[in-house]
């Protein structure tokens, strides 16, 4: 009898472990940037090519850095919500226009509206690499002292915003 117990216990432990594995999304990689200082960068502005924008543009306040591109269907999906969020004005949204074409991106903002305080134009993806971007849309929450406190991969929705971002922002507000 006892010779069955050991394999049975091993099996009983293994099954839940494997089941948890099945529910996880292998495309969502944890960012090594979390709880670390956000990358410092400066790039040409998307809308004003002669101006430089970057981490200094949103320094010393809680801010969102949203990685977007016109070739990215998920970005179009979340765009409406970003506009709502910008209208509420609680957190400034900085855009990182990643690996895109300037005229397409400008047309996109004109047609759909511009939720961003500014968008940096990362044509060759160099700044995207520093942020560990591997797919768009990606959204980073940056604290007032420049720490990455959350990263969301995939389109942002109000539900995700209320659940994952709002509590973190409230926490930050309390400690400031």
């Amino acid at each position, binding site marked *: 009898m006892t010779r069955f117990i050991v394999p049975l216990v091993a099996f009983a432990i293994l099954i839940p472990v494997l089941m948890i594995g099945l529910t996880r999304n292998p495309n969502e990689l*944890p960012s*090594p940037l979390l709880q670390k200082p956000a990358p410092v960068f400066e790039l040409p502005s998307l809308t004003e090519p002669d101006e430089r924008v970057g981490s200094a543009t949103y320094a010393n306040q809680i801010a969102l850095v949203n990685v977007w591109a016109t070739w990215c269907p998920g970005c179009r999906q979340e765009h409406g919500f970003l506009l709502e969020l910008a209208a509420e004005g609680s957190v400034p949204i900085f855009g990182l226009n990643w690996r895109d074409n300037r005229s397409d991106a400008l047309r996109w903002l004109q047609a759909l509206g511009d939720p961003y305080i500014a968008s940096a134009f990362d044509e*060759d993806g*160099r700044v995207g690499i520093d942020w560990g971007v*591997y797919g768009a849309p990606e959204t980073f929450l940056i604290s007032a002292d420049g720490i990455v406190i959350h990263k969301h991969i995939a389109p942002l929705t109000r539900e995700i915003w209320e659940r994952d971002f709002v509590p973190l922002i409230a926490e930050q507000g309390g400690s400031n």
Partner: protein
Amino acid sequence: MKTFICVCLTLIVALPAAAIDSGQAFDDPELQARYENIISEVRCLKCQNQTIKDSNAFLAGDLRREIRNMIEAGQSDAEIAEFLVARYGEFALYRPRATGKTLILWLAPALFLLGGAVVLWRILRSRMALPIDDESPDGI
């Protein structure tokens, strides 16, 4: 005619080969070997079961460019690995470094082998303890 069709088909089948900038990146064969060695061990995060050597996703191209620049700038393989891990995590390396969280990956095969050896040893020992004239065909 037959030859012509054969040639056309071969060319069509070979088309994907032209999709990736697999050409020479360095004149120095030593640097080229290092470059190829590195890019064949870095995961393309966009297409997770490919290396950046095999992928033509633009992210893979961007990472190949960065790695090329870093080799040109004289950075070591360890520095390049550190650059990638700091941005994309240990997952970016097909051959994870044996530190901290990934140590279990390296130790697991040895642990399984050891576990198997212990089980085997115990079974053999219990069999050896059986009387020699045991008639049971599979007595453990």
